[in-house]
C-alpha cells in the first residue's frame, strides 16, 4: 500500500523535475530545431556548438556594452550574429560546395573560440535585463502542477508550442514545405520542377543558425543570466543527436530535448532531494548523475537506428536523402 505521503513526495519531486527540465531543455530544443531546419534542405550544420556561443556572447555584449535594456532586442542581436556566422557557413557549403562536415567542425571550433574571446572581461558578470516568467493561465499556488507547466518565460512558450507547430505546418502542410523536403531528399528533382535549390538551402541554413543563436541568447538572458567561457558545454552536440533521435520531425525534437533536459535536471534535483541510488555513496552519485544526460542521449539515438534495423517506420525516421551532399546541377 502506498501512503499518501509517498505519493505526495513523488508528485512533488516530479514537479520539481519538470519545472526545471523545461527551461534546461530550451537551449537544446532551439539548437536542435535550427539544425533540423538546415538538415531538412540537405545541409548538415555541425557548428551548433559555435552558433550557441556566438548567439550567447552577442546577447551579453548587447546588454553589458551596448546598453540594450530590452531582452527581446538582445535576443534579436544574438540571433542576427549567429545568422551572420550561419551565412558564412552556408555560402561556403552551398555556393562553394565545400565539405559540410569540415566547414561545420570549423564553425563549431571557431565559434566557441570567437565567443570566448569576445566574452573576456564579461565572465561571471550578472545580467539584470532578463526575460521574466509569465503565467499562461491565471495565478497558481506555489509548487502546483500548473505552475510547473505554465509558469515560464515567453521564450519557453515560443520554443515549445509556437515554433514546433509552425514548423510542422510549414513542412508537412504547405507546398513550400514540400519543396523544402524535396530539396533535402532529391535536389535534382526539385530543381527540375523549378525550385531554387541554392536559395532554399541558403535561406534555411541561415534561419536555422539564427534559431541556434536564439538558444545561446536564451541561456544568458533567462536560464543563467551570465556569460561563461565554453557556454554551450556540449549542448550543441546533444542538439545534433536530438535531431537524429527525432527523425527530423519538429514534435519529436521537443520530446528529445525534454528527455535530455530531464536528465540534466535529475542531476541537481536528485542531489538536492537527497535521493539515494544503490551502489553509489552520496559523493559518487554526483559523478554518475552528471554522466547520465550523455548516456541517455547515446541510448536515445540508438532507438531510431534500431527501428530502422527491424524495418519499422524506416521511411519516417530516415535522414533526408541528400543530407550533407553538395548539389551540382550538371551532375546526375
Amino acid at each position, binding site marked *: 500500500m502506498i501512503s499518501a505521503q509517498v505519493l505526495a513526495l513523488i508528485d512533488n519531486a516530479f514537479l520539481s523535475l519538470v519545472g526545471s527540465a523545461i527551461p534546461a531543455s530550451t537551449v537544446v530544443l532551439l539548437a536542435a530545431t535550427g539544425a533540423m531546419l538546415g538538415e531538412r534542405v540537405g545541409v548538415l550544420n555541425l557548428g551548433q556548438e559555435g552558433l550557441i556561443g556566438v548567439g550567447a556572447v552577442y546577447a551579453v555584449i548587447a546588454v553589458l556594452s551596448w546598453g540594450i535594456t530590452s531582452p527581446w532586442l538582445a535576443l534579436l542581436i544574438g540571433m542576427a550574429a549567429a545568422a551572420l556566422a550561419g551565412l558564412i557557413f552556408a555560402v561556403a557549403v552551398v555556393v562553394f560546395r565545400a565539405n559540410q562536415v569540415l566547414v561545420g567542425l570549423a564553425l563549431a571550433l571557431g565559434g566557441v573560440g570567437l565567443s570566448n574571446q569576445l566574452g573576456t572581461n564579461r*565572465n561571471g558578470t*550578472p545580467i539584470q535585463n532578463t526575460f521574466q516568467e509569465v503565467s499562461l493561465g491565471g495565478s497558481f499556488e506555489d509548487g502546483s502542477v500548473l505552475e510547473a507547466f505554465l509558469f515560464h518565460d515567453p521564450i519557453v512558450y515560443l520554443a515549445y508550442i509556437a515554433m514546433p507547430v509552425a514548423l510542422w505546418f510549414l513542412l508537412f502542410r504547405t507546398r513550400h514545405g514540400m519543396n523544402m523536403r524535396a530539396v533535402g531528399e532529391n535536389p535534382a528533382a526539385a530543381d527540375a520542377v523549378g525550385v531554387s535549390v541554392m536559395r532554399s538551402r541558403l535561406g534555411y541554413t541561415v534561419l536555422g543558425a539564427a534559431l541556434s543563436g536564439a538558444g545561446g541568447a536564451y541561456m544568458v538572458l533567462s536560464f543563467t543570466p*551570465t556569460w561563461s567561457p565554453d557556454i554551450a558545454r556540449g549542448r550543441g552536440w546533444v542538439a545534433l543527436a536530438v535531431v537524429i533521435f527525432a527523425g527530423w520531425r519538429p514534435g519529436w525534437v521537443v520530446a528529445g530535448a525534454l528527455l535530455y533536459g530531464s536528465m540534466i535536471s535529475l542531476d541537481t534535483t536528485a542531489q*538536492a532531494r537527497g535521493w539515494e541510488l544503490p551502489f553509489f555513496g552520496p559523493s559518487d552519485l554526483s*559523478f554518475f548523475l552528471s554522466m547520465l544526460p550523455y548516456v541517455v542521449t547515446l541510448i536515445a539515438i540508438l532507438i531510431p537506428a534500431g527501428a530502422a534495423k527491424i524495418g519499422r517506420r524506416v521511411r519516417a525516421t530516415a535522414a533526408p536523402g541528400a543530407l550533407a551532399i553538395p548539389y551540382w546541377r550538371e551532375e546526375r
Partner: protein
Amino acid sequence: MTQKSSKLILPRTAAVSRREALKMGAVGIGGLAVGGSVLAACGGDDSGSTATTTAAPATTAAAATTAAPGLDKVKAHWVYIGPPDDNGWTEAHDIGRQVAQNALGDQLETAYTPNIGFDASTTQLFQQLVDDGNHLIFANTEYAGLMSVVAEENPDTFFVETNGHTWLDNILPFYLAHEIPAYLLGIAAGHMAANGRIGYIGAFPTATAYNDVNGLLLGARSVNPDAVVETVLVSTFFDPQKAAQAANALLDSGVDFLFGVMDEPTFMQISEEAGIWTGYWNGDFASARNAAPTKFVASFELTELGPFYTEQCRRVLNGTWASVAEGDVILLDNPLSDWGPNVPQHVKDEVAAARAAIDSGELSVYQGPLNDNEGNQRLAAGEALDSKGGYAIDWAVEGVSGI
C-alpha cells in the same frame, strides 16, 4: 645545471646574455650573470640542495644585497583554473598576483594562464612553463599529480599549490583555512534561515567542501539545534549554468539559506530572486553584492593572497625559498567580509563574539563529541581538531546530506 628537457646545452664559457639564454630555455633557473660577460650556466639559488654548483660569487656591479645566493629578477607564472575576471576565486588570485607585481616592481616578471582544467595538457603546460625559464609557478587549485610529475623532474623550479596535498622539496602547499568563516557564517545562517535548512552548492567531495559544510552546520547548530545542510555537488567550480540548476533545485526543495563554492555569483542572483538569504565563498566582490543586493549576507575574504604571493616571490629573490615538511601546510586566514545591508544587528554581535572566542582559543570549530553523517563517531568528547587537522578532513558532520 641544465634541464632535462632542454635541447640545447651551452658550453660553460659561452658568452651569451642572460636574456637570450633564458629565451632558449637552455639554462636552469637562477644563473646569475656576473659582470655581464660570462654566464654561469648553472642554477644555484634553491634551498633544495639539489644543485651541485652555485652561482659564481657576485662581486661586481651586480652585487647582491644579501649574502644568500639569490636572483636579480624572478620570473613567476600563475596557472588558473578559471578566467581571471570571474568576479570570484580566480580574480582574487589575480589581484594577489598584481599585489606581488606592484610590491616587487622590476624584480618580478609575472604572467598567467587561465582556464586550465584537469587533463594531460595541464602537465604539458607546466613542462612548458619550466622550459620557459620560470623560477616560480603558482597554481590556484590542486593539480596534484598533473603538476607534481613535472615538479619532480625539475627540482630547481619552485611550485606553490593552492589546497595541495603533494609534498616535494620544490612544492609548497598552502590552504585558506575556511572552517572558521564557514562556522561564523553558519551562526548567521542558523539565525536567518527560518526553517533551519541551509543549501550548499559544492564542486567535488574534497577537504574544502567538507570544511564548508561542516563549518556551516556546526555554526548553525550552535544557535539552532535542528539546522541541516543540504548539498549539491556539480563537479565543477566554474559553470554558471550548472550552478544555476543546482541553486534552483535547492531552492525548490525549500532551503532558506544558500551558500556555494562557485567561482562566480550567478547562484546568488537566483537566490535573491527567490527571496532567500545567500553568502559567497570567493572574496568580497561588488558583483557578488550586486547579484543579491538585499539578500547578501557575507563572503569569505581572500585578501591574504597578495601578501603571501609577494612573500613567496621575495623568498625566491633572496634565495630563501623552501617548502614545508610532509603533511604540513601554510595556512592563510580568510576572514568573513563586511555584512550585507539587511543582516540583523544581533546576528552581527553574536558572530563577533564567536570570532573573539575562536581567536582567544576558547572555542574550536571541530569540538568532540562529533559523529559523521554515516553515524560513526569521529571525535570523542573533549577531542578537538585544529585547522591543520581540518585540512585533511574527509567526512561530513551528522546533519549534512548529499556529500
